[in-house]
């Protein structure tokens, strides 16, 4: 459905900042194809 609406899912590195410190995780997020 996301493809049909001109959007795509892509893997993104995102930062997590907690009291214990900062780290990154890879998640899926959608964005415009352009």
């Amino acid at each position: 459905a996301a493809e049909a609406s001109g959007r795509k899912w892509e893997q993104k590195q995102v930062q997590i900042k907690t009291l214990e410190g900062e780290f990154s995780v890879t998640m899926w997020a959608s964005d415009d194809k352009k």
Partner: protein
Amino acid sequence: ESRAFGQDATLAGFEWGSYLEKSGFLAAPVSCFRHAPLCAQWDDIYVGLKVEVLNTHTALPSKVYWIATVVQLTGYKALLRYEGFEDDDRFDLWCNIGTADVHPIGWCAVNSKLLVPPQEIHHHIKDWKSYLMERLVGAHTLPVDLHVKMADSLRCTFRQGVRVEVVDRSQVCRTRLAVVDTVIGGRLRLLYEDGGLGPSGEVLSDFWCHTQSPLVHPVGWSERVGHSIKETDVNVNMGSHPAFRKVPQNSVPDQFKKLRTVYLGNTFFEEGMKLEAVDPLNLGNICVASVRKLLLDGYIMVGIDGVEIGDGSDWFCYHASSHAILPVGYCESNDIPLTLPPGYDHTTFTWAKYLEETGTLAAPRRLFNTDYVGHGFTPGMKLEAVDLMEPRLVCVATVRRCVGRLLLLHFDGWEPEFDQWVDCQSPEIYPVGWCEITGYQLQPPIGPE
């Protein structure tokens, strides 16, 4: 009983989440509403998404956030469960995905906000980093451009002081010049240019509609298509109202929704032809009706049989592509009670006999817009809908019936006589949570419901 005064749902203690939980009904998904913000993005919003949301369970003085999972979606509203609560639903919270305090994962780090777990679970997990890694890696989060898309879709080309032609609510057969006073979520408050002001400067006559409403047109439209327009009474001075202080700016066709082109071909509607039409003054009724006058650009004036005053003042303008005009026999085929002219009886009325008696022809079926694009509405779904008889009011409503593209809407807590037929793509219906996003006042249900 009048709905005219209105209430504020929030002040009345109404909350969509608990209302739906109690009633067991579902909300119509945002993707059903083509004109609604985020409609095109909504396929990417679903149960299981991870978000960052304001942490309301903390003793810290500063604003902190925490990660949560979408466990339920109703319109724009999501039921969220903070990460760490696992199967414990006691601290679940309803949030509006379209408002500012729900974000994709990563937003806090980029914006120097801290993620802090709710105090109830802070010490339950020894190693939050490992716990979150396990929960987040490979999971899906909100579209990163969600709030940008939201802002884009709320942008509107209408400003205070823009002039339009809009149906005259005191005489529906004609339009009247009006000026935009307020714009909320694409809905316009229009002040008739000669509507008058009361002793304290209050507006005496206004009208609300969406920018995509078929009732509002660019300046010059009436003259172009041959529609009647009220001449503005120049003796009425509106100059002290802010909407009239600037030099008025005429609206232009590009600011309005383009209607489907009507190819006239060899045949078109003709004066006297019969059809079935939603009664513009009683929107829960589909009536026996007649084409009264042809205008240009595919517009027709329609009168409701048997109740017309006779001077044409109650005729109503419909475009030939409108889904509010239907071929004869539509109600019978779809088990909708047809409102008959006074003196006729459901046990004896037939279209064939009526056409013969009145010496008229039924408008050919091929002239009607029979496109059925499909929609996701089903009976029982909840939404926010304009009471088209009091279009200032956006109310808690339920889809009662779906017939082709038409939806019969019921206003929760009100008698069925207030029900209204609307097209599934009407710009006057909105997903649950729309009022909260746009700041429009929502009318709560009345009574025990």
